[in-house]
């Protein structure tokens, strides 16, 4: 049951900027596909268009090869889980899960069996008689999953399902969702702004920016070979260095890294460097390679197991480096020190982009 989206566009006010435009991608059958992007990127609108809660101005939505662009939401057979849970507060957990089955006029015995099966699956069989108000956030979200799955949907659409939960519960539920998917193999679309969530549990990632698809690929591909400066800066918290093409290399002051083959001499370049792709060294006299630069330590921030070092390079660019605690202690730098930064890998884009 794949989901295919072709040239979707939706604008909410005539003349206003579109919430979604020219969006095309495929969510492969049986996989988890993430829609990843900052807030306002159009991810939720896209999900609502696929669910049938919005009708697109242009384009098509195909579920399992069937065009359902204008099919009413009730007939699409999609299971939707909302960030706000959207449980029926006046119904018990059991009644919530049974709701979709009652509408389908599933016989009572079969319905009850199905509800119990769903509650077992989300590990809430002992709480069937409770009201949503008596449950924790994580439990409520699991009820929402049970309710959505009870109707045996063709695809599962998740709109920031863990967005309202605290970090620990979120990580637990992420694991749980992964295990659940292993069991059901249901085609799943997951809207999230959390790149870790997207990279961790999905087999396919669609990065969105300003209503458009910035890149659609596997998590590894998106991480290792970002298709645009936006993706490079959004994924992995990279710092950006500005420079120009000199002698076939991207030169940022004294520092230079390999430039794309097509780069022409003198063109502006941007190099994106991930926080852990820079190695810091104390000694300034070591034979300096081409990929090293001197930097001044502007600020230090200790974050649990590692330390964030904010470096100012001679070109004026600021880079963030993450150094493991033990390594940092061995290094022994303080704010104001000069250190040598060795760029181990960078993603370079030629041209004058602004993000």
């Amino acid at each position, binding site marked *: 049951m794949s989901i295919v989206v072709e040239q979707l566009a939706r604008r909410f006010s005539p003349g206003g900027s579109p919430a979604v435009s020219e969006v095309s991608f495929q969510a492969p059958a049986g996989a988890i596909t993430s829609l990843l992007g900052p807030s306002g990127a159009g991810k939720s609108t896209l999900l609502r268009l696929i*669910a*049938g*809660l919005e009708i697109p101005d242009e384009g098509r939505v195909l579920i399992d090869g069937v065009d359902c662009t204008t099919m009413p*939401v*009730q*007939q*699409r057979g*999609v*299971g*939707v889980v*909302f960030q*706000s849970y*959207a*449980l*029926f*507060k*006046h119904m018990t957990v059991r009644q919530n899960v049974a*709701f*979709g089955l009652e*509408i*389908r006029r599933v016989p009572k015995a079969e319905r009850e069996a199905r509800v119990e099966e769903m509650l077992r699956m989300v590990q809430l069989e002992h709480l069937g008689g409770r009201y949503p*108000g008596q449950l924790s956030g994580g439990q409520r979200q699991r009820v*929402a999953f049970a*309710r*959505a799955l009870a*109707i045996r949907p063709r695809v599962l659409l998740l709109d920031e399902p863990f967005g309202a939960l605290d970090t620990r519960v979120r990580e637990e539920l992420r694991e749980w969702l992964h295990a659940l998917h292993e069991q059901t193999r249901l085609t799943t679309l997951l809207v999230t702004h959390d790149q870790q969530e997207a990279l961790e549990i999905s087999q396919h990632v669609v990065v969105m920016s300003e209503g458009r698809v910035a890149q659609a690929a596997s998590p590894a591909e998106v991480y290792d070979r970002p298709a645009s400066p936006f993706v490079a800066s959004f994924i992995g918290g990279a710092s950006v260095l500005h420079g120009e093409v000199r002698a076939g290399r991207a030169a940022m002051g004294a520092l230079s890294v390999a430039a794309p083959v097509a780069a022409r001499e003198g063109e502006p370049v941007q190099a994106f460097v991930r926080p852990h792709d820079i190695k810091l060294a104390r000694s300034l006299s070591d034979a300096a390679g081409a990929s090293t630069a001197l930097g001044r330590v502007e600020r230090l921030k200790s974050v649990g197991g590692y330390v964030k070092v904010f470096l100012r390079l001679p070109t004026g660019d600021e880079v963030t480096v993450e150094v493991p605690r033990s390594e940092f202690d061995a290094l022994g730098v303080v704010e104001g020190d000069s250190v040598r930064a060795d760029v181990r890998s960078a993603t370079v884009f030629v041209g004058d982009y602004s993000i």
Partner: protein
Amino acid sequence: MGRPFRSVSALTPSTPVLRQRAHGLQGPAFVRWGLIGATLLLLGVFLVVPLVAVFTFAFQKGWAAYGASLVRPASLAAMRLTLLAAVIAVPLNLVFGLAAAWLIARYRFRGRSLLLTLIDLPFSVSPVIAGLIFVLLFGRQGWFGAWLLDHDVRVIFAVPGIVLATVFVTFPYVVREVLPVMEAQGSDEEEAALTLGASGWRTFWSVTLPKVKWGVLYGVILCNARAMGEFGAVSVVSGHVRGVTTTLPLHAEILYNEYDLAGAFAVASLLTLLALVTLVVKKFVEWRSQPS
């Protein structure tokens, strides 16, 4: 004029917070007791004494006279007319209120805020003016007066006029109670119901109505109290034809003007009882609608 009313949703969440007000915010004891004393004094003079007076006067001549003044044909007719006006106005208000609240809460359209303002009109216009509007429309000299006369339909100084005036003055009650509840709760649950296969109609009955039921009930109670107690607008269109176009409040006034104090206060005591029952039910609804 319109009774002061408060929305259920605006009331309930803040109550526990107020109760736990920080000690530092409480002034010295004499201020507190002074304020309590002043409030009690005013309540006593303006509420308790008149309340006692109503029942004292009503029972001045004993139970028998009290009962007799209530079972008089004119009194019974007034009761019937009052009930009739309420029985017509309240369901109309309920249907209109739910439809309008749904429209305003769920849709964004041109003229939405104008509509909201218009719905409030009966609250802001004097009831006497409300009555006069109908006289100007349907009275003998009114816009539709000649046509109505030709077709032998009486609106003014007849029962239809009374019903019209009652419907007009109670117009905003249910919308104003239901709208804030609907807006506060958003439409996520409705959308979830749609994705589960429920039709719009089913969603309304199974999801929306249960969510707003206490707001609806609250609006209905206030609407009913106003419908039965309305004086100004009804007085203008009634013509005071005893036993035909007099509602309970008008009947009480007529008896009073005829120096039948015991009779007037017997009728007044009925309306007072209605008010007390309304208060108790209203309190109950407020209590039930608090989130557990």
